[in-house]
């Protein structure tokens, strides 16, 4: 049974197709101004096994042809992320919170705390005994601890986002970021640069300040042993290290492909719904699992 999860984020979109819960294929693209087009394009990316955002695939994919797959072949499709409500061919829309919680367990069984640092909002999720969301918290009021902050600074320093992590590891000192405000962060970074500071040291300071922010955030739901970081941030070694440094004794579990955790969660929810319908003895047509409408 094929199910699909589509995660349309504010910056990037991902699509995952599962076959009876086994990863069949996935893809990613940047989110464009038009969500509907983006949604269709990311499905294309998945069936053609393109992952535009970050080059190589980290997950092993079964060696079967998938490029013939169509939306109609899916038993159920669940959308999540920023544009979840406007994906025309999705049967259900479920929030990132639930999807990251679900997806994280698929990658790291027994996970108890999930941190997802997204484009605009960072989320801390405590996973309950039954794998449900027991509590969650999101950053509000200020974007100081978000991926956007990193993008802005990376851009100001003219370093590709994928490189800021490795680069920061070469730092010789940690320059304190005088401003944790994302908007002012840009000015702060450029100013330091102009004062002749080295990029890696500025980035180390950036990661330090974001690590403090997000850990203060996730602490609100309580941090427990099995700690998972999902989302693009999981690819930033610099930040992950700083998080471990700043939180004594914490060992971060990284999903193999942190970017698709939400989409996987969505695809798993899709599977539930499809199976539920199947049990209910109804056909697995679109209408079949289409109870949300």
């Amino acid at each position, binding site marked *: 049974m094929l199910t699909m999860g589509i995660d349309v984020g504010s910056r990037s979109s991902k699509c995952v197709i599962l076959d009876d819960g086994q990863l069949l294929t996935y893809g990613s693209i940047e989110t464009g101004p038009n969500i509907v087009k983006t949604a269709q394009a990311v499905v294309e990316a998945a069936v053609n096994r393109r992952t535009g955002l970050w080059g190589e695939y980290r997950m092993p994919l079964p060696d079967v042809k998938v490029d013939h797959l169509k939306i109609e072949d899916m038993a159920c499709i669940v959308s999540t992320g920023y544009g979840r409500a406007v994906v025309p061919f999705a049967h259900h829309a479920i929030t990132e919170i639930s999807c990251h919680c679900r997806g994280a367990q698929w990658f790291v069984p027994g996970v108890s705390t999930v941190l997802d640092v997204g484009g605009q909002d960072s989320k801390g999720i405590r996973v309950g005994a039954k794998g449900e969301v027991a509590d969650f918290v999101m950053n509000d009021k*200020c974007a100081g601890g978000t991926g956007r902050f990193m993008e802005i600074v990376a851009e100001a320093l003219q370093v590709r986002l994928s490189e800021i992590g490795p680069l920061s590891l070469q730092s010789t000192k940690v320059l304190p970021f*005088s*401003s*944790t405000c994302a908007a002012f962060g840009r000015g702060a970074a450029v100013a330091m640069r102009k004062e002749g500071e080295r990029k890696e040291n500025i980035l180390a300071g950036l990661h330090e300040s974001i690590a*403090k*922010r997000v*850990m*203060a*955030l996730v602490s609100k739901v309580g941090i427990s042993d099995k700690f998972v970081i999902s989302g693009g941030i999981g690819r930033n070694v610099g930040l992950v290290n700083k998080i471990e440094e*700043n939180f004594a004794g914490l060992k971060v579990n990284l999903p193999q492909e942190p970017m698709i955790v939400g989409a996987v969660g969505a695809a798993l929810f899709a599977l539930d719904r499809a199976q539920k319908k199947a049990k209910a003895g109804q056909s697995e047509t679109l209408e079949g699992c289409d109870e949300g409408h």
Partner: protein
Amino acid sequence: MSDASLITTEELATRLKMAAEGIKKVPGLMKSSVGYMELLQKYVERIATAKEKGKFVATHGTQQPIEIYEAMDVVGVFNEFWGVVSDVVKLESVPEALSISASTGTPGEVCSFFRNMDGLLHVGKWPRTDFFLYATSSCDNVKAFHTLGRRYGIASFGMERPHYPFTSRALDFWKNEHKRLIAFLEEQTGKKLDYDRLKETVRLSYRLTEICLEIDKLVAHVPSPMSSECFGGVLLALRLMCGTQDAVDFLTGLRDELQERVDNGIGAVKEERFRVMWSSFTPFFDPKLMGFMQQKYGAVSVCEMLARWRGESKWMLDPDDPLGNLAYRTQLAPGNCQYAPSIDWAENSVAQARIFTADGAIFNNNWGCKQAAGLGPIVRDELLRHCGVPTLTIACDVIDNTFTSRADIEAQLDGFFEMLEGSKAYQERRAHA
């Protein structure tokens, strides 16, 4: 969260001792700057050693009758002071405490004096405290004393004050609140208050007020004799150690030194170019800023609203009614009008600007202070209207040095002092002097 950078009481005490030694070797500083450091160190020492001396410790907010604590052998820890002195000896401590506070769910928009306390309590690095004492007359944040008190099992007592503190009914009520405070302390400590001792601490406290007013007269001189490194000394003696002989001795020494400097025409700086008043509070978040202003701009701090008495401040009404005196004292005490209606603070600022012939005012708009946020514009307008003193408003956090960068503040100061120099009012004042 990591808590490596957090300051402990013991660390504070030792570092201050070192600082006091170090400052002796620094050339060109006032004698009293050593005295100030020693007084600071004494204050912290008292707290650090309270336990072994078998004394009770009270963490308290502003506008508290410290004289009563002194008379009952209760050692006071002024919660706001803790953040300030942490910045003096270890700048990293406060930001770390604040992020710990944030991790407990306390929002970043409440006063960082209290968030600092919140964070340190959470990891057990706040000075050991037997009870919390507070009063309406500081701000809404005193509610934290109640909530944190319950959270950490520390008894607390709050004193209430009417909105208009100056009516006779308000005075009677406020005096009665003092009685209730004493009852609370007697119950907590199991000791009765010795009223003769209270009379003595109140007498010392009044003496302190008198010397303080003499110091004001000296600081009002042009050029002002008081250098920035002593500026905080008055505040410390006045608001944290009133009722102690130590405070009286320090201020007496300071007064004599200032007198001597005035007689010999010695000013805080070689060439006094600007006289600055702090119309909310001095830059606790950047302990070196005032010294820096002296050097770079010849800008001397002449007055801080938190250390200014109201008028003559003859509050010793009846030596045999210490509580009556104390109740009245709070009405006139420094920083008191912060609690009163904005216009009251503004008028007081105008009066002070005249006494100290200030050229400009700096209003630190403390991010977490809702009183300041609604006060700044009125104070600013009144100062300009009545004595042509312009105001620079700095958006800052009272003790979090990471909130605003020094570069940013310097840029604003550059503009401000250039502006002052160009202004008519300033040139006239200079012509006078």
